[in-house]
């Protein structure tokens, strides 16, 4: 019985099926908000209000022909999308929304799981680089080198800003951090600067404008994704959608006070808070234009990293004051 429960947990809720459905819903929300900000309609016809459009896109890609370039390393080329999907789905299991008991740490909630989530979210970048490298296409090579260059820019501010609330809450376990802020909601305002930095850094991690340099359509055709088509491209896009959900879930846990109230109310909190973070990401996407790769690195190290360090110092001071 416990085995059946584990299998359902992994495959259905909160496993693959739930992540698939919810991430396509979040992609619909993102596209609708982006379109409305630009005075357009967004998806309308597929399903009511266009809700089924991302699923339709996924199914269409699954049905297309899958071409592997001759010079590419076939095994690496084919297995990378699946690994990417597995990595982000595992990160999704660690979010503190699926019925956690604070007293009993288990496989999905333990001290240090915030570090595991951050690590699992950095792996897709490496997977993208390997995908670009194994494609042996000129445009993909340039895209791959840009992916790694961007990694040097945004990782440090992201880590610093996400770890500040953890330091204030005195714990490395996501469920405990969330519980700390649920008990003292006013302390959330102390992390506002960190929240803004984290939103910008997550936008860079997800490779959306202004940071969609690695797969900049008008410059290097498809960038890292140039040679991918059919099922592999469908899995890559799904990986990015789920990564968006998991990253916004992480930000909602750490900066917006988590998901209190048990199974149903906690789920409602989850939906509302992740949609709020995704709204901010869409707003940022519509607001700016793409910047150059050298400007990303200089922007991150001139502005983002010092501000993140400032936030960290403020947190440490506040912690000393509170004691």
């Amino acid at each position, binding site marked *: 019985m416990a085995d059946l429960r584990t299998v359902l947990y992994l495959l259905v809720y909160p496993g693959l099926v739930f992540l698939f459905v919810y991430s396509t819903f979040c992609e619909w929300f993102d596209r609708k908000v982006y379109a409305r900000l630009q005075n357009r309609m967004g998806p309308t016809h597929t399903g009511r209000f266009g809700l089924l459009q991302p699923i339709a896109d996924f199914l269409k890609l699954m049905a297309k022909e899958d071409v592997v370039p001759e010079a590419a390393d076939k095994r690496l080329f084919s297995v990378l999308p699946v690994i990417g999907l597995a990595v982000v789905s595992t990160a999704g299991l660690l979010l503190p929304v699926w019925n956690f008991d604070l007293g009993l740490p288990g496989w999905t909630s333990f001290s240090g799981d915030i570090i595991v989530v951050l690590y699992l979210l950095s792996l897709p970048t490496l997977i993208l680089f390997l995908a670009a490298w194994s494609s042996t296409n000129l445009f993909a090579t340039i895209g791959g080198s840009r992916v790694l260059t961007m990694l040097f820019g945004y990782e440090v501010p992201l880590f610093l800003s996400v770890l500040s609330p953890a330091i204030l809450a005195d714990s490395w376990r996501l469920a405990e951090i969330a519980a700390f802020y649920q008990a003292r909601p006013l302390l959330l305002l102390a992390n506002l600067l960190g929240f803004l930095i984290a939103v910008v850094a997550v936008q860079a991690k997800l490779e959306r404008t202004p940071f969609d340099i690695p797969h900049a359509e*008008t*410059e290097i055709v498809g960038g890292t994704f140039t040679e991918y088509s059919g099922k592999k491209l469908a899995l890559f896009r799904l990986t990015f959608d789920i990564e968006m959900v998991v990253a916004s879930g992480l930000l909602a846990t750490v900066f917006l006070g988590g998901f209190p109230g048990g199974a149903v109310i906690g789920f409602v909190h989850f939906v509302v808070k992740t949609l709020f973070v995704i709204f901010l990401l869409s707003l940022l996407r519509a607001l700016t234009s793409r910047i*150059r790769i050298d400007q990303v690195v200089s922007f991150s190290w001139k502005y983002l990293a010092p501000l993140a360090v400032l936030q960290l110092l403020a947190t440490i001071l506040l912690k000393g004051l509170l004691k």
Partner: protein
Amino acid sequence: MSFEIPIGPQHPALKEPISLRMTVDGEVITGVDIRLGYNHRGVEKVAEEKNWTQNIYLTERICGICSHSHATCYVQGVEKLMELAPPKRGLYIRYLVSELERVHSHLLWLGVAGHEAGFDSFFMYTWRDREIVMDLLEMISGNRVHYAINTIGGVRRDLDEGQKARILEGVATLRKRSEYYFHIGANEPSFVGRIAGVGMLSKEQAVSLCAVGPVARASGVARDVRKEDPYAVYDELDFELCTADTCDVLGRVVVRVKELLESYKMIEQMVKGLPDGDIACKAPRKAKPGEVVSRYEAPRGENIHYIKANGTDKPERLKVRAPTLGNYPATVEMLRNGFIADIPLIFAAIDPCICCAERTVTLVGARNGEERLVTLGDLRRLAIERHQSAPPKRNAVWPI
């Protein structure tokens, strides 16, 4: 590590096929090789088989965005050959459509520049406002693209009071929106960071490489056919020549937005001062022998048509020099020492209308990749031999 990146012929940054082979060293470009001819349609040859009226529609279809420029440049030349004096009202309507076309082309270009830079919201907003101009042109001429308002001797359609009021309304809305876009284009940090200091072309280089249009004006070269050699109604209108000093893509944006504001002024003057009278005069079917060079300031620069007549109802020779062809050597210079990330912006900043510029052909052997440059004399000889040995055809043979 130096290798060659092919931009084109098929590339998302290009709206039309052209092959730019860039030799790059890391992210810096060291050399560019431009190859044309993917869109060559033989327009100049077809023009010799059609009569003067049919050629208006043929020259219009050299390009979609600057269609009226080509048609008007041609019609100006033919009217000179036939020694016609079109009535004032017809000329005012013709150049009113010219200025509306300039507005539509510059708004299109602003959107494309935003899209190439990744600034999609700007692209959507400028194209939404461009719909106002397209609706006005549809109301005046019956179609959104390829207005076909010219006829030899004047224009084909008249404007009534309701249409004039709607034009003035539309221009007032557009003027507010254009000033807002100017403000955004100059102040949005991520956008300005992309376009400032990119694609430098100094004043001496612009003059020596024969750059035309806003590309030259952004380097401080004050050249505009409407001011130097005013044709038709331009010596009666009050407008300024817009230049900028920064010699980069930001300067080209500034020049085009300033030209938009000047065009709004001119449109209002023309609508309010529209004289009464006929809209066209009768044109003969045949033209006396002679040759004429007709110049026109298209949205992209100076457009030149050379027409030779030999007394029949068909031209003997039509030669088109579109402005983008004049800007290609300047493009090579601008791309040198730039970044790869700047290629689409620099190329888009010359406002390329590649289908206008299809005049040269290099024959590349398909099997062995060897290249042969065929001179004009050889091409003419080959074409004449083929024409003389083929049976005479009255109508075209359709491939179905």
